C-alpha cells in the first residue's frame, strides 16, 4: 500500500465552540489552519444541516441580513437588491427572521485570540467571500468570532418555481445548533453534519487518513458511532482517535503530568502516569471559560454578553498575581497567600447562592480578617464604608491625578474598546439600563469597595468611531450630554492614556497591537466602537470559586492516581491548557490557588521521605545528632520538627539502615511546577500554547500514520473496520 504522506493527513479537533482542523503536516508544526464554529443550522428540509443560516425569502419580501444588508427577492427568485440598512429609510417590516445581536453570538467562541488564526484561515472560500461583498472592508472589521465563522460561500440557491429564494447568511447565529455541550455530543445529526462540513471544506483526497481528538467525556459508544460515520460516510482509509489529554501530554512530551484543560463550559482534569491516562480518576467539572463570563456578568450586570466577552479578551481584564492589591481595595482584605479575586462578593458566588451568615460576623472579626460579606450582613455596612471613605479621601487626590497613566493593575478603572456590529439594535436598550450618574467621585468609591450590593458599575461609553451612524445617534445623545458635562478633556486624557499604556506594553502583548490596528481600521471603515470603562471587577473574573473548584478537582484527581510514587511527579508537571486559561494571570492564579491550599510545606513531607529514627539518638556521619527521642506521652507537637528538617541531609545519611518503608511515599504535593513549554515549535510560540492539543494531534498523526504506518496498530484501517466494525476503534 502506498504509505500515507505528511500532507495527506486530516486532523480534526472538535470542541464545544470551535472545531479545529488542518490538512497535512507541515515541516514545522503550526497552529491549526482551519477554525470552524461547532454549530450548524437546520436546513430547509427536516434533518438537514447547513453551515450557514438559511433565510427563506418569498418573492417581494425583504430580508434583513445579519451584516446589515437588506435583500429583496425579485421576481423569478433573483435577489435583486442589496443595500445597507443605514441607507434604508424604513426598516424592513416583513422580515421573517430577526437578526438581533442579542440572538447572535449567544455562544461566542471560547477563543481569546481568534484574530491570530485569521491570517491563517486563508481558505479558498475567503476568495468567494471577497467576491460577493463589495464592502469587504466593512466585513473585515466585524466581530472576530464572526469572521472565523464564515466559511462563507454566499450560495444563492434559487428556486424560481415557487418564487422563494434561499439565502445563506454568514452573520446570523440565531437558531444555530451547537452540537456539543461541555464536550459531550448532544446532537449527533448536527455533529455529523459538522464533520461532513469540515471534510468538505478541506476536501482531501481519498487517501487521507483522519485523526480526531476525542474529548475525555466521550464514551465507548460515542467513539464507535464516530468511527462508523468516518468509515461509512467520509470513507477514510484510516482513522484514529487521540484523547485530548494524551495529545496535550504528547505536545509537552512529559511522561507524568497533571493536565488541566480549560474549555468553554468544562474543565477536564487528567493525570498522566508514564504516558498513560489515568482513566478512573479523571474528571470533568462544569467550569470553564464561560464561567468567567458568567461571573463577570454578575459583577457587571449592565454589560451585554458581547461586551463581557470582549472585556474578557481585552488586555485590561486580568487576574492580579498574589501580593498586588486590587487598586482601591485595602490590603487587609487579603491574606498574604490569598488570591486577589477571592475577596468578599466574589467568594460567595459560583455554586451557591449567597446567604447571609448571621453568626459568623463576630467570629470573622476576631480572626482579624475583614470579611466584607460578614460586615454587610451584620449591618455595619455604613460604618465600614464611612471608614473606607475616609481612608480613601486621603489618597484620592493623588490617585485622580496619577491614575490615568498607571499600568493596568494600579488603576481603579480602565477602558477597553468594544467593537460593535455595524447594525446594533439593542444599543439603545443597553444604555437605558445603565444609570450614567457614575462619574461623581463618591460613587466611584462605593463601587470600588467590594460591597455585595451589586450596584451597577460605571460605564463610560464613548463612541470613538469617526462617523457614528445617524440611526444610532439618537439613543446616545443622553450619554453624550453627560459627557459634555464632564468636559471633553476628561475623555481625551482617558483615551490617550489608554493609547500610551498600550504602547508601553506593546512588546509583551501582541493582542494589544491588534487592538490598535483594529481601532484604526474601524476608524477608517466607519465601524462603531465604543470605549467601555470598567472598575476593579475586571480583576475578579476568576472569582466565584472557579479557581477553587479546579484546584479541588485537581487534588482529587491526583489523589486517585494508584501509583502513589508518581503523584509528586504529576504535581511537578502541571499543564494548564485550553483556551479558557488565556485570561491574563489565570494560570498563575490557578497555581497559587492550588499551592495555597494543598501544597505541603517541604519541612513536613519531602524531606522526611527518608525516615529519621527518633527513639534512639543516632550519631550521623557529620557528627550532628538527629533529634532526640520525643516522648510519645507528650501530646505536644515535636519542637524539633523544623530543626530536623534542617538536619535532614544528615538524618538521611544516618537512616540508611532504616529504609524499611520503601513502599511508603510522602504526602503530595510537596512542590508544584508548571511544565515547561517545549521550545522547538516556533510557530506555536506566537499563537500561544493553549491549543497545544492540536500540536499533540500533529505529533500523534506523524507517529501513527507516517512513522509507524500501522505496524503497531496505531489506527483503524479500512480493512480492520470491515472485519471488526465500529468496535475496531477500541482495539487500537
Amino acid at each position, binding site marked *: 500500500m502506498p504509505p500515507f504522506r505528511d500532507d495527506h493527513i486530516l486532523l480534526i479537533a472538535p470542541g464545544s465552540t470551535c472545531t479545529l482542523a488542518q490538512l497535512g503536516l507541515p515541516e514545522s508544526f503550526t497552529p491549526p489552519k482551519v477554525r470552524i464554529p461547532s454549530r450548524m443550522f437546520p436546513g430547509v428540509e427536516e434533518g438537514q444541516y447547513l453551515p450557514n443560516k438559511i433565510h427563506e425569502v418569498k418573492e417581494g419580501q425583504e430580508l434583513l441580513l445579519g451584516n446589515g444588508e437588506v435583500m429583496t427577492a425579485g421576481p423569478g427568485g433573483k435577489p435583486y437588491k442589496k443595500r445597507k440598512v443605514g441607507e434604508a429609510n424604513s426598516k424592513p417590516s416583513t422580515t421573517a427572521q430577526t437578526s438581533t445581536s442579542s440572538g447572535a453570538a449567544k455562544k461566542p467562541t471560547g477563543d481569546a485570540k481568534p484574530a491570530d488564526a485569521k491570517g491563517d484561515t486563508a481558505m479558498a472560500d475567503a476568495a468567494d467571500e471577497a467576491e460577493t461583498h463589495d464592502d469587504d472592508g466593512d466585513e473585515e472589521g466585524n466581530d472576530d468570532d464572526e469572521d472565523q465563522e464564515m466559511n462563507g460561500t454566499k450560495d444563492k440557491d434559487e428556486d424560481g418555481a415557487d418564487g422563494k429564494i434561499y439565502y445563506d447568511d454568514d452573520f446570523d447565529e440565531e437558531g444555530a445548533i451547537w452540537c456539543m455541550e461541555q464536550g459531550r455530543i448532544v446532537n449527533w445529526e448536527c455533529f455529523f453534519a459538522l464533520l461532513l462540513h469540515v471534510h468538505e471544506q478541506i476536501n482531501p483526497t481519498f487517501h487521507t487518513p483522519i485523526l480526531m481528538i476525542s474529548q475525555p467525556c466521550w*464514551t465507548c459508544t460515542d467513539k464507535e458511532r464516530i468511527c462508523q460515520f468516518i468509515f461509512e460516510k467520509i470513507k477514510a482509509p484510516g482513522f484514529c482517535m487521540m484523547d485530548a489529554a494524551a495529545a496535550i501530554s504528547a505536545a509537552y512530551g512529559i511522561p507524568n503530568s497533571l493536565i488541566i484543560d480549560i474549555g468553554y463550559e468544562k474543565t477536564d482534569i487528567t493525570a498522566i502516569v508514564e504516558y498513560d491516562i489515568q482513566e478512573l480518576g479523571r474528571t470533568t467539572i462544569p467550569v470553564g471559560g464561560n464561567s468567567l463570563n458568567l461571573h463577570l456578568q454578575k459583577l457587571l450586570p449592565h454589560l451585554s454578553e458581547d461586551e463581557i466577552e470582549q472585556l474578557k479578551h481585552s488586555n485590561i481584564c486580568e487576574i492580579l498575581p498574589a501580593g498586588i492589591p486590587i487598586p482601591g481595595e485595602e490590603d487587609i482584605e487579603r491574606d498574604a497567600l490569598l488570591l486577589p479575586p477571592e475577596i468578599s462578593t466574589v467568594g460567595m458566588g459560583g455554586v451557591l447562592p449567597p446567604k447571609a451568615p448571621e453568626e459568623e460576623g463576630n467570629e470573622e472579626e476576631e480572626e482579624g480578617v475583614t470579611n466584607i460579606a460578614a460586615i454587610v450582613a451584620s449591618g455595619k455596612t455604613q460604618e465600614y464604608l464611612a471608614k473606607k471613605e475616609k481612608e480613601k479621601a486621603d489618597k484620592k487626590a493623588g490617585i485622580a491625578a496619577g491614575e490615568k497613566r498607571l499600568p493596568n493593575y494600579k488603576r481603579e478603572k480602565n477602558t477597553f474598546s468594544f467593537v460593535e456590529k455595524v447594525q446594533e439594535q439593542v444599543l439603545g436598550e443597553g444604555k437605558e439600563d445603565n444609570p450614567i450618574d457614575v462619574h461623581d467621585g463618591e460613587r466611584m468609591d462605593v463601587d470600588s469597595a467590594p460591597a455585595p450590593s451589586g450596584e451597577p458599575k460605571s460605564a463610560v461609553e464613548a463612541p470613538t468611531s469617526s462617523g457614528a451612524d445617524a440611526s444610532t445617534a439618537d439613543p446616545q445623545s443622553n450619554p453624550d450630554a453627560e459627557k459634555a458635562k464632564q468636559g471633553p478633556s476628561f475623555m481625551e486624557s482617558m483615551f490617550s492614556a489608554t493609547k500610551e499604556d498600550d504602547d508601553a506594553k506593546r512588546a509583551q502583548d501582541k493582542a494589544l497591537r491588534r487592538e490598535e490596528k483594529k481601532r484604526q481600521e474601524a476608524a477608517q471603515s466607519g465601524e462603531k466602537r465604543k470605549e467601555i470603562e470598567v472598575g476593579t471587577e475586571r480583576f475578579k473574573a476568576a472569582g466565584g470559586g472557579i479557581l477553587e473548584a479546579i484546584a479541588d478537582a485537581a487534588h482529587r484527581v491526583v489523589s486517585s492516581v494508584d501509583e502513589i510514587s508518581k503523584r509528586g511527579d504529576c504535581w511537578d508537571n502541571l499543564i494548564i491548557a485550553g483556551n479558557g486559561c488565556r485570561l491574563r494571570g489565570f494560570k498563575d492564579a490557578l497555581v497559587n490557588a492550588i499551592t495555597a491550599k494543598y501544597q505541603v510545606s517541604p519541612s513536613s513531607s519531602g524531606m522526611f521521605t527518608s525516615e529519621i529514627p527518633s527513639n534512639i539518638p543516632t550519631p550521623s556521619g557529620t557528627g550532628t545528632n538527629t533529634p532526640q527521642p520525643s516522648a510519645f506521652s507528650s501530646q505536644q507537637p515535636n519542637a524539633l520538627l523544623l530543626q530536623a528538617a534542617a538536619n535532614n541531609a544528615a538524618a538521611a545519611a544516618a537512616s540508611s539502615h532504616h529504609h524499611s518503608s520503601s513502599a511508603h511515599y510522602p504526602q503530595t504535593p510537596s512542590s508544584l511546577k508548571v511544565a515547561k513549554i517545549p521550545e522547538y515549535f516556533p510557530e506555536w510560540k506566537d499563537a500561544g500554547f493553549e491549543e497545544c492539543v492540536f500540536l499533540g494531534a500533529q505529533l500523534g498523526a506523524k507517529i501513527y500514520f507516517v512513522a509507524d504506518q500501522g505496524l503497531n496498530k496505531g489506527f483503524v*484501517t479500512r480493512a480492520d473496520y470491515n472485519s471488526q466494525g465500529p468496535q475496531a476503534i477500541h482495539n487500537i
Partner: protein
Amino acid sequence: MASTPQASQVLPSTTKPAELEYGGDEISALVLDPGTNTTRCGFAGEDTPKTCVPTYYGIIPDPETPKYFGSLKIGENAVNSVIDGMEIRNPMNEGIVENWEVTTDIWRHCIEYKLSSRVEEHPLLITEPIWNPLKNRERTTEVVFEDFGVPAYFLVKSAVCESFANSKPSSLVIDVGHAYTSVTPVVDGIPLRKGSERTPLAGQHLTTQLRHQFTEMGIRMTPWLMLKAKTTYTDLTNMPALRSRDYGFQPHASFIEYQQDRFIHEFKESLSETWPEPRTFPTDINNVGDNFRPFADKSYEFPDGYQRRFGIDRCLAPESLFNPSLSPKPFTGDTPKGIAEMIKDSVDHLDADIRANMLNNIVVVGATSLLYRFNERLSQELTTMFPGPRVKLQSSGQTPERKYSAWLGGSILASCGAFHQLWISKQEYDEIGANIIERRAK
C-alpha cells in the same frame, strides 16, 4: 509492511471505496461492582472499570419531594461541591444495598451517564457479597429487569470474582474492603457459605479510628474545602487563626465528615503502617519499653497547615484491625475478633480435606489491604496460627488489581464464552419472576 493482508486491501487514493456497511453488532456486557465506598462499572473484557463513582451521595432534604424526600446529588463532582443543606449519605448498610431508590439512580448514573451506554442494550453482571440475603437478591433482579430493562443479567458473588481475578478456581478469599473484611472459601468457583466470615474491621473502621485519634490529639480537622489557605504551624497549644472559607452557611456535618475522610484517606496512604509482627505491639504506646525497637517518625501536614510527626502512633489504627482491643475508639457493642482470628475461625469450619488447599491458596484483595505491610503481618499471623500446613498468601502487586479485583473477576467471567449460558434472560424473568435468581444463581 506493504505485504500485510490489511495493507493490501487499502485502495489507492484515487479510487472511491466501495459502499461497505458494517452489519454485525456485537454487544458487550456491562459489569457493575457496587461497594460501600465506590461503585465500579465498566465493560466486560477490559482490565479496569471505566468508571468508579462514589456510592456516597448528597441529598438536600425536602420532605415534599416524592420518592427521595430531597434532591439527589450523585457523582464525584456533586458530592464534593459545597451546597447549602446537602447531607452526605450512603445507600448501603452492612455491605448490602439498603436504599434501593437511590442505589438504582447511582447505578443508572454509572451506566447511562458515565458510560453513556443504553442499559437496555447490554447484559449486566452485578457482584454481591456472600451475605446478601434473598430479599435483596430478588430486589436486584426486579430493579435490573423492571427499571433498567436489561436483556440479560446475572449475579455473582464477589469472592468468586476475586478468586478468578487472581486466576484461582479454589482459594480462600480475604477481601479487606471499606465496610467489611470478609473471608470466603471458594472451591472450584463455588463460594462456601460455611466458613465464610466477616468483620467490620476494614477501611471505614480505620477512618473512624484515625478520626478519633486526631480528635484526641486536639487536631483541628478542617477539610480543604472549608479553607482558604493554610498556615503552617506545629504548636497545637498556639494555633493560628483558621483561614476558613466562608460560604455564607455552615455545610452539613455529614459533608464535613465526608471531606475529612479525604485527608484521612491520604494519611492512610502515606503514613499508616501495619506493625509487622503479631503480638509484639506495645499495649500502651505512651509507655513503650526501653528495649523497644525504634520506630521511624513521619510527619504529616493537615489541611489547615498543622504539621505533626507521627511515630508509633501511626501504627495504632492498623494494629486495631488485628487486635481490636487496642482500638483508640472503643467499640460500642462487643469487641469483634481480629482479622487473623476470624480467618482461623473460617478455616476451622472447613472440612479437613480442603483445609490445606485453602491455606495454600489465600488470596488477599481489597483496597485496605494496600496498607503498608498489611500482607506481611497477615502472613506472619497465619503462619503462627497454622504451623502445620503451608500457608501461602497471594496478592497482586498492582494497585488497580487489588482495588478492583471483584470487578476485574466479573469482567473476566462476563467475557468468557462458557459464561453466556448462565445469563438469566428477560424472558425467563417474565415467566418465573424475581425468584428466578434463587433458582439460577445460588
